[in-house]
């Protein structure tokens, strides 16, 4: 009984310490933006790695998500004789929900896991210690460029996702199932308002912060993560943990932001 209580207490203390560490980590990464010299070239390089190189994944996810929405939406709306609302249904689903959420999840899988593994390996091979020993701030040098690049990339990728998804809906609904193209575009024009776009943008910024924070943080603290093990196994477990935690956080915050802003 005592050992059970001890374990719960120990887990609770670990959780509190972990949250504290991650809070300080976030603050240090943000402070890194103001530290000089600013690593502009590295930020651009990271935008290419995290943003531009994720475009193909975003393209295929968006086009097929849009096509499935077009297909499902068409057969559902046809029951009520409202096929003309297909454009509206596809666009609102994408702009308000699916665009930001799926973009964040795809970037987590493609770039977030890579960031976590890269930083975790650097930690395990003493590369981060080496930076600190050379009096080089590892946040300014390593973490902050990834933060900035992710926060710039995900909102832009989300807008691409929305546009490509709407085009996918057009392909399935208009070209394959024969919905009137004018009705499709008119539906979008009539139903999408600034608030919808703002909601999507706010979500994409928050999701970007969550993804980069969790993924880089898990990698940075790989050596003190509980049950993560050491060496390659530790990095592998930290990466899994980062992807799972980021994905769940995106979905939880999706609900919270929607509830607050609607």
């Amino acid at each position, binding site marked *: 009984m005592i050992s059970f209580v001890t374990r719960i207490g120990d887990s609770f203390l670990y959780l509190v310490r972990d949250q504290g560490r991650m809070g300080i980590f976030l603050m240090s990464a943000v402070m890194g933006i103001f530290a000089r010299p600013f690593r502009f070239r590295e930020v651009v390089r990271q935008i290419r790695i995290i943003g531009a190189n994720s475009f193909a994944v975003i393209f295929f996810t968006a086009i097929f998500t849009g096509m499935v929405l077009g297909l499902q939406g068409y057969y559902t709306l046809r029951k009520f004789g409202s096929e003309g609302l297909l454009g509206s249904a596809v666009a609102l689903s994408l702009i308000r929900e699916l665009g930001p959420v799926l973009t964040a999840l795809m970037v987590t899988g493609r770039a977030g896991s890579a960031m976590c593994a890269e930083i975790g*390996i*650097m930690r395990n*091979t*003493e*590369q981060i*210690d*080496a*930076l*600190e*020993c*050379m*009096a*080089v*701030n590892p946040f300014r*040098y390593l973490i902050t460029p990834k933060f900035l690049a992710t926060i710039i990339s995900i909102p832009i990728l989300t807008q691409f996702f929305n546009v490509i998804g709407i085009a996918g809906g057009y392909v399935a609904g208009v070209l394959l199932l024969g919905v009137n193209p004018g009705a499709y575009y008119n539906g979008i024009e009539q139903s999408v308002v600034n608030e919808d776009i703002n909601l999507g943008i706010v979500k994409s910024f928050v999701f970007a912060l969550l993804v980069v924070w969790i993924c880089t943080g898990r990698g940075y603290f790989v050596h003190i993560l509980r049950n993560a093990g050491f060496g390659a196994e530790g990095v592998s477990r930290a990466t899994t943990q980062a992807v799972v935690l980021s994905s769940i956080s995106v979905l939880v915050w999706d609900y919270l932001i929607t509830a607050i802003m609607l």
Partner: protein
Amino acid sequence: MSPPIIEFRNVVKCFGQQRVLDGVSVSFAAGMTTVIAGGSGQGKSVTLKLILGLISPDSGEILVNGRDITKMKLSELNRIREKFGVLFQGAALLDSMTVFENVSLPLRERTNYRSQEIVDRVKKMLAQFDLDGHEEKYPAQLSGGMKKRVGLARALMLQPEIMLFDEPTTGLDPQITMDIYRLFFQMQKQFGYTSIIVSHDIPKVFNLADQVVLLNKGKMITFLSPEDIPLSMDPRIVTFAAETMGNIYSSRKMEQNI
């Protein structure tokens, strides 16, 4: 004897239930070479990390040039760290960077030199380490000995006052090990740094030492010189000498029974 450049005062460091350093008090004299010896898991690398402020002690003071680094802000600690050069066990080269980028990193980050001056200084340093022609290679394309030489070149770029070596010859063949030791002598003569070496390479590494410190069960035993080791009557030192400097088997009979 020179005044201490680094001093431990009653330093305690625990990891969970394990008390790695148990009230250690030791001083490292300026301009001298100290070898820290001891078995695996006795806290040798922890001692180096404490000196660098990478980890904090649970209690006690660590003085560098008379100033306690355990009570410093990060900005002050970074100024102290500029005095240090470190050669890590695995060299700790940034693996996404070339040899040139690794060695030039301290200059780019810590000085205001123009890019041509950085190129000149790095090329000069690489030539000293017999690494010219390897500037564009990545760490994964280098042998163990070359990685150590690049690590040493990077550590010396800012002409540190104190050099810390964490297992500088682990994993290297005897010939490369001797090359590294020769480089060590050459560079110390050139730069005049104080050095602290953590090593398993006993007794060879004692050739470099002015002072030897033995870590045993969380305590440090200091000798004035490596020559004192075989003369000591302290049972801990006698055991250490027998285990590390003696024959593989304690008798011919034991050897024949294997």
